[in-house]
């Protein structure tokens, strides 16, 4: 099996889906000859032609809006938005149109489409190339929100998202694009949406995370292990619809929970995990649920490594919860 980086796995996933189904097409800003700012779409125009992989004018609203129309009329658009931050100019098309089409038409019209977009910090991109806006979108019924953290999942979840009958926002952790490598099967396979992944098991504390925070969690867990604390790491990988039963099962297993994300804390996704456990598994809890998150501030630039949760802050929360 070839070893691929996460961004290569995305590229492989796109090619695999495009080979399997002529109605799949990829478009956005700089996805054509340049092959994408992060090279996720490299080689697509040369293999599939500029009818199936092409650059658009500089309008995210236009990209997502036309994707909705294409999806309503028999195509399977995979739109790329250069950075998650630039989904906001398309917010209306995502939240009010793509997400609500099935509901408002009584199921007569649907938008089976994918919006792929790099998200999160770690590249010194400042306020507008670093945000983790997942909570804006997980508050949107009708949308699916998927976040891979390994090359295997990136390809498998992407193919599942492209084949899904509903619109999917596919958030690619840019900090992991080239920093993680893993075995990726050739050809078509998929990873079911709405299933979490057990990264490693441990008996003492369950650590829920996703995206680039999975690698931070692993480092913190190594350090905790050295201190005799076993950490059970869970990669949520689909945020909406969430694998709620899986979350509850893992939370009950240790009775001690830390939730980790790089997005701001207030009304962040961690609040949902925390509330879910509080509502349905509080009697299993032996310690308060702890959250490790970004600050409730805009994303900084030079101080980004202080803003982003790092293994120190995660370990601190793990120890706090373990020793409670």
């Amino acid at each position: 099996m070839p070893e691929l980086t996460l961004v290569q796995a995305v590229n492989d996933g796109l090619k695999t889906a495009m080979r399997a189904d002529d109605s799949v097409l990829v478009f956005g800003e700089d996805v054509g000859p340049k092959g994408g700012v992060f090279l996720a779409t490299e080689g697509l125009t040369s293999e599939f032609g500029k009818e199936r992989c092409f650059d658009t004018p500089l309008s995210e609203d236009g990209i997502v809006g036309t994707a909705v129309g294409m999806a309503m009329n028999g195509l399977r658009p995979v739109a790329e938005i250069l950075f998650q931050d630039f989904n906001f100019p398309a917010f209306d098309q995502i939240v009010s149109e793509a997400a609500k089409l099935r509901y408002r038409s009584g199921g007569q019209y649907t938008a089976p489409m994918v919006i792929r977009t790099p998200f999160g910090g770690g590249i010194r991109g400042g306020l507008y190339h670093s945000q983790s806006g997942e909570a804006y979108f997980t508050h949107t019924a009708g949308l699916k929100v998927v976040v891979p953290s390994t090359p295997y999942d990136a390809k498998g979840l992407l193919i599942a998202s492209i084949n899904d009958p509903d619109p999917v926002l596919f958030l690619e952790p840019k900090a992991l694009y080239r920093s993680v490598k893993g075995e990726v099967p050739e050809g078509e396979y998929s990873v079911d949406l709405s299933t979490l992944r057990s990264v490693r098991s441990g008996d003492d504390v369950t650590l829920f995370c996703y995206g680039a925070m999975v690698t931070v969690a692993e480092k913190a867990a190594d350090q905790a292990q050295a201190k005799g604390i076993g950490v059970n790491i869970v990669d949520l990988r689909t945020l909406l619809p969430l694998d709620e039963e899986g979350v509850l099962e893992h939370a009950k297993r240790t009775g001690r929970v830390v939730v980790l994300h790089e997005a701001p804390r207030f009304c962040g996704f961690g609040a949902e995990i925390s509330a879910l456990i509080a509502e349905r598994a509080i009697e299993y809890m032996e310690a308060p649920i702890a959250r490790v998150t970004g600050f409730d501030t805009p994303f900084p630039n030079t101080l980004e490594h202080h803003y982003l949760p790092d293994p120190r802050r995660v370990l601190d929360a793990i120890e706090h919860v373990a020793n409670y």
Partner: protein
Amino acid sequence: MSHDRSTTAAPAATTLDAAGRRELFVHMLRLRCLDERMLKLQRAGRIGFVGTARGLEGAILGAASALAPRDWLWSGLREGGAALMRGLPLAEYIAQMYCNANDTAKGRQMCNHFQHKGSHYPSWSSVIGTQIPHGVGAAFAERARGSDAVHAIFFGDGATSSNGFHAGLNFAGVWKAPCVFVCIDNGWAISVASSAQTAARSFADKGIAYGIPALQVDGNDAPACHEAVAQGLLRARAGEGPTLVVLETYRMLGHSSSDDPTKYRSDEEVERWAKRDPIDALERELLASGNLAEGERAELVSQLTAEIDAVIHEQEAAAPMALRTLVEDVYAEVPQHLRLQYNHFHDVVQRRGEALPGDGAFPL
């Protein structure tokens, strides 16, 4: 509706005199030297990112040179040289590139996001086209406050596809807002050619739809850029409303220090434009009119570079931003919940040490 695409027969008041042309030439040279220095610093890993103005000096500075000190300049990625020309201290320019403690924006924005309140130059957010309606609103406010200052709103060819462009021009047309739209059509929006951005013959055509007169100008002819914008300013100050000025030029280097333009454009195209370099063109004109001496350009370059190097040296030594700035300026006062978040963070730092910078690099 008039749609004048020519710039001939400009009123005398709008043409740049010999002294003005020479001054403009020096500003253009400074900007080029500065870009070269910044690229070097980027390659050496001292700063993160550079979006250069190489090839655009005539368009950016020619256009900006028409503004009065009381006018505002709304910028995109590449107008930093205009801020410098209009009063941004070189030290602040370079501090912004280092994003250090001397940066007036406290290192919060990426490189190439300059601001200078003293000369009415707000920084660009990063989100393409968003400054366009801001400039229109500020122009509206200018008139409401009884001032005759005009707002020059700069943006690129790519930005003409943004929502901000359409909303901004439409509102400005309806309101007859005292502003001048300056579209720097440099041929490319990262890897997307201007010809793929619109089916219109020229971006100037877009003025028609909004009832805004438009001028299309050779953006490598710096004095012509000055004239066109000066005409727009006259109209705006006379209460006649906005003008769209499209400056046709060419982005000679990659989109930024991280972009490889050979993947999407031909060497021949670049060479064709290299022959039309705006600095060379103005130099020839100044030499011919006796306003520049043989060999003076080289002298100016070494003088300007020395000035720049001295400031770089100074800024290299500046401190990074203090950690507490993480939670400042989010609101007028730091709210209680942020105080608590910071205190907890500070406590972890005290007990376990500071986080280390990552090694991620900006890709675009």
